[in-house]
């Protein structure tokens, strides 16, 4: 699900020269375990299995199920660092909840400013 697929719950941006993978969830997406699994598989294809830093833009996500949170618990170390881009109080709460409950194994931060997120991630490139 790369490029712009309007019906898709997310889309992946092509890898740039900065070595940061980017996933943007579509407006109103209910982030279920099935969506989470597909996204992780697509990201693995995009990165060719390399552990890269990831920018996950969840600003437009409607909700995040517990099963999806549990699934993400086990796959965070597929990436070298994780910048979670939130916007509304609800998405900020989702991120804080995830970080608080999951204690990710790789550097993980919440940002509300994309530039700051990318700047932080570029410092995490191995």
């Amino acid at each position: 699900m790369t490029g712009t697929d309007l019906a898709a719950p997310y889309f992946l941006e092509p890898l740039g020269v900065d070595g940061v993978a980017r996933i943007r969830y579509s407006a109103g997406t209910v982030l279920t375990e099935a969506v989470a699994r597909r996204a992780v598989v697509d990201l693995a294809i995009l990165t060719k299995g390399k552990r890269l830093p990831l920018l996950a833009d969840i600003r437009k996500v409607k909700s995040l199920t517990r099963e999806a949170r549990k699934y993400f618990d086990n796959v965070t170390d597929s990436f070298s660092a994780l910048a979670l881009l939130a916007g509304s109080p609800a998405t900020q709460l989702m991120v804080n909840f995830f970080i608080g409950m999951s204690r990710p194994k790789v550097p993980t931060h919440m940002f509300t400013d994309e530039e700051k997120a990318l700047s932080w991630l570029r410092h995490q490139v191995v």
Partner: protein
Amino acid sequence: MTADDNRLVPIIEIITSLARGDLQPEFPEIVDDPELEAIVLGLQMLAEELVASRAELEGRTAELESLNDGLVRLADLGNLLASCDTSGEAYVVLGRAARDMYSQLSGAVYLYGASRNVVELVTTWGDLPVAKSFPPADCWALRRGRAHHVSVSGAELACRHTREGERSSAMCVPMLAEGEALGVLHLVAAPELGDRVFTPLAQRLAVAAAEACALALASIRLREKLADQSLRDALTGLYNRRYAEETLVREIARAKRDAAALSVLMLDFDHFKGFNDEFGHDAGDMALREAATVLVESVRTSDVVSRVGGEEFLLILPGASLEATLQKSDAIRKKLKGLELFHRGRRLPPVTFSAGVAAFPANGEAPEALLRAADAALYEAKHAGRDRTVSASARPAGLAVA
């Protein structure tokens, strides 16, 4: 109530439901109020975590209760096994206890046979079609000396003694006592139970149960061996005088109760001292062992053959009449006389035995009286020239049966 207060009504309702223990209340969809939306979402996620934690806690509590129940049963089983006198009793107790402990499972207990080439079925329960016996190499638990669990997915190697194509969670636990495997406990869950039954705790309990049973069985077997040794004559393996006398008391009581016949046959090696002097004690011992083999092979399994003195044997024959015993005595003496004995490459001369026969109740109603009668008849046989049988009933007339 102000407009701001009304805004908080859904939050208050959610918190009230959570406080009542209802962890899955209705979470309203909030629009155009991002802060409230975040609070409702936060409460919803917390409630989901609480539901999951509660389910996990309930699962663990149930497992701990089951473990506790298992430990209590295990302690009971240990006490029961410790009270068993024989392996046979222990097998019955073990079968019932295993069935009780693992009632939701099918299972079987196998123990090594004397040859240790095969394990034999002792008890089984549930609807498990089990092999009556199998070679130890067919069981991974026996091969590796540790518990072997096979999950429904079948990722692990299944034992060859289990049903072909079986897609059930199963476990084999070796019954180890002091480093030696006595057998194996085999447990199988019904397919619909999946892998739920053999949790890590349940597996540990099964190992503890198998070890407790193995230790108890080893202890009983040792006790049996010691008891058997105290009843046996070390040279010939026959029963000793003590066992023969106890048996005679029991058999006379039985004969009295059932109005049945009972005879005793006393046999004595003729000129045994001379035989020993001429050919050596080794030769004498060998002759006694050979004679013992002939005696055991000549009678029924219900008869008792014992060595009651240096060269003297006593046979107790429940249900045998005097006449039948006289015939049996002569047949035995004939076989003994026909024994071909070799010692250190040298052929030994034929041996002869004298015999005295007495029957209950004609020659004595009490054990001592019956033995005295047989002994007196034996004396008569010796006195009359040896190599013969004398009946206690014929003694007054001095009649010898050649």
